């Protein structure tokens, strides 16, 4: 199946989802982008340059790791993990960013902007901008700035300006709005490096295309390591880019179940979550440039969302998934904050892996289901990022008293030094 073959339908639409819903002032910009993207996609040397860049700069291909201990302890399916946490800057976000960096160069633009939730996309964008010599501004909800401070620190030191967005819920969606506002002003020299497979066409397709490198690699690797394809494939879903990336390696296999793992936050019925497809709380709407399932009220205003993982704390979901969900081609489950904390602890101690809080959502569902599967089945989970960035959140979640004392000591030191 080629979901990106629009010849029978409307360009940029996946079923009824997707499209371009942007102010008129951006129409020319988005057309220019689409045209440039079409050129790149048609040009095999572009993809080669892209892959070479990721290999030499970001360490691709990332490996697939067999979780021997957890597989044994759970006694069910054999668990394999795709290790996009080993990328430079610590997550899969760099794939998309490097691709769009090459594209920005082709567009002849000199400035990039990006929204970021977990900070991983902002970190990756700031890194790319440093490498490509672009000016860079990162918009980040003030709530996320507070919970992902290490990433903010690095972004700034990489030369990016980080703007804490104080509007709305002060999270990812508000950062997206601020990006749009910047873009409608500065589109002449600015490319908006959207961080996930959402937003107006061609972003969902483009981001998915860049991220497809994950699935291409993983398919080959799991075949090489196990001699067969997995039975089920799991990935967390914020906007959906890492999941789209991995799933694209397995879309054509009717017997492989693809499972998107959303942020269940405080659980079903709590209304404090970010599960657009796994729970029943979302409905179709149009915002942030595209049509999809949004967590919104009856009047079309967005609800408050929540997740322990900043990168999943988002109102919408990529329109491709909205369509595949309708078609029953991808199953969606949610992991709650509490489950995420437990699974993170388990994964650290049992396998020496520290998945990002976002990625841990995929682990929760995969481990739960693997336990019920048979020993000769295989599951593959995407480790979209590493948890280093989450140290403050995890320390809080685990109520680590030594960490707290350390922070208090540091604060005292700073106050003393200031006199």
């Amino acid at each position, binding site marked *: 199946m080629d979901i990106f073959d629009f010849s029978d339908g409307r360009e940029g639409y996946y079923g009824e989802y997707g499209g371009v819903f942007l102010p008129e002032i951006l*129409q020319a910009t988005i057309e220019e982008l689409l045209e440039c993207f079409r050129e790149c996609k048609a040009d095999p040397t572009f993809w080669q340059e892209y892959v070479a860049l990721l290999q030499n700069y970001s360490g691709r291909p990332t490996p697939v790791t067999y979780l021997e201990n957890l597989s044994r302890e759970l006694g069910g399916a054999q668990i394999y993990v795709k290790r996009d946490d080993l990328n430079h800057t610590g997550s899969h976000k760099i794939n998309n960013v490097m691709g769009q960096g090459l594209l920005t160069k082709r567009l002849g633009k000199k400035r990039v902007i990006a929204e970021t939730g977990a900070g991983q996309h902002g970190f990756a964008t700031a890194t790319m901008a440093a490498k490509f010599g672009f000016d860079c501004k990162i918009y980040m909800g003030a709530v996320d700035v507070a919970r992902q401070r290490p990433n903010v620190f690095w972004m700034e030191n990489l030369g990016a300006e980080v703007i804490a967005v104080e509007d709305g819920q002060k999270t990812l969606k508000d950062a997206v709005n601020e990006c749009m506002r910047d873009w409608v*002003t500065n589109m002449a020299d600015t490319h908006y490096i959207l961080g996930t497979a959402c937003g107006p066409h061609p972003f969902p397709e483009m981001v998915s295309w860049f991220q497809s490198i994950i699935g291409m690699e993983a398919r080959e690797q799991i075949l090489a390591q196990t001699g067969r394809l997995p039975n089920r494939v799991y990935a967390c879903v914020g906007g959906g880019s890492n999941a789209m990336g991995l799933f694209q390696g397995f879309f054509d296999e009717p017997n492989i179940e693809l499972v998107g793992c959303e942020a269940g936050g405080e659980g079903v019925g709590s209304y404090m979550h970010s599960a657009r497809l796994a729970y029943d709380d979302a409905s179709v709407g149009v915002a942030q440039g595209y049509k999809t399932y949004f967590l919104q009220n009856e009047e079309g205003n967005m609800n408050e969302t929540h997740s322990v993982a900043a990168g999943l704390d988002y109102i919408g979901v990529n329109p491709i998934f909205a369509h595949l969900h309708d078609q029953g081609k991808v199953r969606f489950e949610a992991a709650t904050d509490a489950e995420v904390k437990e699974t993170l602890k388990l994964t650290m101690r049992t396998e020496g892996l520290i998945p990002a809080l976002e990625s841990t959502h995929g682990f929760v569902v995969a481990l739960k289901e693997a336990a019920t599967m048979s020993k000769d089945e295989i599951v593959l989970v995407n480790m979209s990022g590493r948890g280093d960035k989450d140290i403050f959140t995890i320390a809080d979640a685990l109520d680590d008293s030594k960490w707290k004392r350390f922070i208090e000591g540091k604060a005292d030191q700073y106050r003393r030094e200031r006199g």
Partner: protein
Amino acid sequence: MGLQSYIAERKRGKDILVMAHVVCGYPSFEENMQELEIMAEAGVDLVELQFPFSEPSADGPLFVHANEESLKAGTTIDQCFKFMAEVSARFPFKVLMMGYYNTAFKMGEERFVERVKEAGGVGYILPDLPVEEAVNLHRLSEEAGIEPIILMTPTSSDKRLAKLGLASRGMVYAVARKGVTGSKTNMGDDVLALIERCRQHTNMPIGVGFGISSKSDLDFLRGHADIAIVGTAALKIWKDEGAPGLKTFFAELMA
């Protein structure tokens, strides 16, 4: 009477019309009404009533804040339509719904058109709805006799302007510059060139908006545009100086 003929009629008496703007429910419906009183008194010709939306990504800081505060205060769509009905019944100026497409989408396009119509609105401005996505809504509007206001911008190609021109009804909203609502626009050759280009692609009256804040802006547009659209400037005055300020503002603006 359709929007286009209304504008034509109003223009008989003056060389430029004024369209003003309020964000429904911000600071409150009561204050909205006071603002509108002043606008009516000053002789404003058209008013956009912005329905607050949680993701006002085409708006500048002041309107973003206004949208947010209004929603926080509990403003509903029902209230907005009710307010629109009152306003269109009470004042001589014509009223347009302004907002984001999701507001229309969620209630259903048919129902949306119906409700604007019922509330006495003559049309609507949905800045995040491109013409390609508006085919059905435009058809419904035509049937109902209300106007979808098309935006034309400095970045629109001629080809694009031609397409927009074909879809234009009632009036065209010419966006004076890149960016979001709110900051000042330098009135100069660029604006005139834009108006010129718009005229080549539409016969509708042309309103110019984004950053219009003073009599000198109006004077500049006189003879070129049909309507000057005043948004943020008025809200800012209202916030800073209240009713007396707003009165002076419009008096000076339209002197």
